[in-house]
């Protein structure tokens, strides 16, 4: 198949190639356009009808999914009726083309537009060059955000990876493996906002003369201390960020534990026995054999958590709103764009965040590829 393809491509004239390109782009653009038109027509039709709600929902589902399915089917049929060579050239684009087109529309174009906006002033009218970027690296709150994000990356990823690995190793040797793993995985099912609410209770602080309902303060008071408002404990800035970071560690440990657990179970038993006979201690086996064996998983999990902490927003927004020296890049971006209405500055922050994520992302994808995940 592949051979046939290359030979036919190399013999194509420039004209044919150009025609192929035009047809491919046409297919990629026209299919989603028709799909949007059909779905929009359906929306208008349903909006104005008086049918019961459940019927509308049902029709919407059938209309949307069925309509798009039909569209692909029709286009595929048309392409298959073309001469063999042309079917080969165009068929992939019937299916992958629309996805690419939509990705460009929703992802690539907004990114480009955001970059353009980041070079304009707060109203998006006047070109001001790199002034927004200069501001990012000089403004006090932004520098605070960078510092905090660095803390998030270092502590958040290190602890959730280390804790996940430790629990996976220990659970593997325990007869309570399933129960303990389920309990630790459970937080993964909780939304960040939900987790924020839960941890707000943990950190709740009441006047000293009434009973403490927050666990942490209850302990402190039981030992004769006075209750503290933990994130607002500005004396220890920037370490009060750790009270927020713990929440994400709590949420993420389950994720890393599950992946590590699967990877550890993939280590052949004979390998560990060979090391034991060779004279390695259990600790040596862990660091010298097991860790290198699951290295791929380790890097994948680590980078995933790093990307995650780079983009952290919800937990901070819910718990402190960025007060008490807990701003992060994403909260700054939100504040600038939607509270202060400074679209230029907000866009510049978004671009910086994107640039920060890209190298980690590339590394992550390369790891995936090495593991032949795709």
């Amino acid at each position, binding site marked *: 198949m592949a051979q046939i393809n290359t030979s036919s491509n190399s013999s194509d004239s420039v004209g044919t190639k150009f025609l192929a390109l035009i047809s491919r782009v046409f297919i990629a653009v026209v299919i989603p356009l028709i799909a949007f038109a059909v779905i929009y027509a359906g929306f208008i039709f349903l909006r104005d009808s008086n049918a019961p709600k459940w019927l509308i929902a049902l029709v919407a589902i059938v209309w949307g999914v069925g309509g798009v399915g039909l569209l692909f089917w029709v286009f595929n049929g048309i392409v298959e009726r073309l001469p063999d060579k042309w079917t080969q050239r165009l068929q992939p684009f019937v299916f992958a083309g629309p996805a690419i087109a939509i990705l460009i529309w929703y992802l690539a174009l907004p990114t480009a537009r955001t970059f353009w906006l980041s070079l304009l002033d707060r109203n998006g009218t006047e070109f001001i060059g790199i002034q927004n970027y200069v501001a990012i690296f000089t403004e006090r709150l932004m520098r605070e955000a960078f510092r905090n994000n660095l803390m998030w990356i270092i502590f958040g990823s290190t602890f959730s990876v280390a804790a996940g690995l430790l629990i996976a190793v220990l659970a593997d040797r325990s007869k309570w493996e399933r129960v303990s793993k389920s309990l630790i995985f459970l937080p993964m099912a909780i939304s960040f906002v939900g987790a924020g609410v839960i941890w707000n209770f943990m950190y709740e602080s009441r006047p000293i003369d009434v009973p403490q309902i927050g666990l942490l303060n209850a302990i402190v008071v039981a030992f004769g201390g006075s209750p503290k408002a933990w994130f607002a404990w500005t004396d220890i800035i920037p370490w009060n960020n750790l009270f927020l970071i713990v929440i994400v560690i709590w949420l993420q440990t389950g994720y890393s534990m599950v992946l590590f657990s699967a990877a550890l179970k993939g280590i052949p038993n004979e390998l560990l026995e060979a*090391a*034991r006979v*060779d*004279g*390695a201690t259990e600790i040596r086996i862990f660091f010298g054999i097991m860790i290198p064996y699951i290295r791929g998983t380790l890097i994948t999990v680590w980078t995933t958590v790093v990307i995650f902490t780079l983009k952290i927003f919800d937990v901070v927004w819910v718990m402190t709103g960025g007060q008490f020296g807990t701003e992060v890049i994403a909260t700054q971006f939100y504040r600038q764009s939607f509270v202060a209405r400074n679209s230029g500055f907000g866009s510049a922050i978004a671009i910086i965040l994107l640039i920060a994520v890209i190298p980690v992302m590339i590394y992550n994808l390369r790891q995936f590829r090495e593991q032949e995940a795709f």
Partner: protein
Amino acid sequence: MASVTYKNVYKRFGDVVVINDLNMDIADKEFVVFVGPSGCGKSTSLRMLAGLEEISDGEISIGDRVVNDVPPKDRDIAMVFQSYALYPHMSVYDNMAFGLKLRKTPKAEIDRRVKEAADILGLGSLLERKPKALSGGQRQRVAVGRAIVREPAVFLMDEPLSNLDAKLRVSARAEITKLHKRLGTTFIYVTHDQVEAMTMGDRIAVLADGILQQIDSPRNLYNKPNNVFVAGFIGSPAMNFFTATMVQEDGHLFLDSGDFRVQIPDDRKPVFQSYAGSEVTMGMRPEHIHSPEFAPPGIVASPIKGSAELVELLGHELHLYVSTGKNSLVATVDTRMNVNVGNNVDLVMDMGNLHLFDKKTEKAIR
């Protein structure tokens, strides 16, 4: 260099007895093969010696030292695993050097030993490679090399050749035998392949159902099997067994299977006399059943008749499947014998190679 002793060793998993009262003395520098069908306990016996499996009862000693509670690393053993168990992230060199590094062997000494082992095994040009970049045969040699460099008192090998293709297995077999001669160390080798067992071992321990059936030299195992199991396990095609009644007539002993009647040589009469009148299990190896034309001279031949049901010509020998009525047998006959399926055939049994077993205990009558 050390002897190995199993003394009343048991291994139980819950209520299941996997090894049942194993007693064995393996001499220094000996090459002993544990053989048996899967699940017979041969690997478990080896793993208990390695320290990878706990001993439920009894004692295992290496040299003069009881090793029941000694961790694997302090037993002075090296092991080659079926899957080779090479460390995938280490080069061939590091794989071999790993055990020595852990023992804080000086660098120069490590280097010398690894290079020497690599020379013996022909791995010299592969030292920088990772296991992933090696063929099956090369990996197997690295696994052996990793054991050699340790210069252990006892070598343990758990089916090290079973992942190789048939041709490579034959040459690797010879390599390991040569290695044993060269190193002069105690080797204990587990396999389910009787050819490996027969060709490699100084002595072979045949296990079945967790019980040691017999430990003996290959020759004795073949010529004087202790019981029906060993007799049937060693040899290919397997020994023919018949249920026969021993009858005494005119001062001679005969075995009557119902289909055929053969005479026991008179010189063996005293041994079997007490079984006269009772049923016994008679064993006859296929290679001791001949076509009368090509029977070797000087044998005590007893004729039988049957019809050929299947003829397999292997080139150097001919396997003849014969029905004698209610019994059937396999004979390895001379390839010149002219026989087709359905023919009536005349054969002779070489009664000098008769094996008789007590029908109840299945033990050899001697």
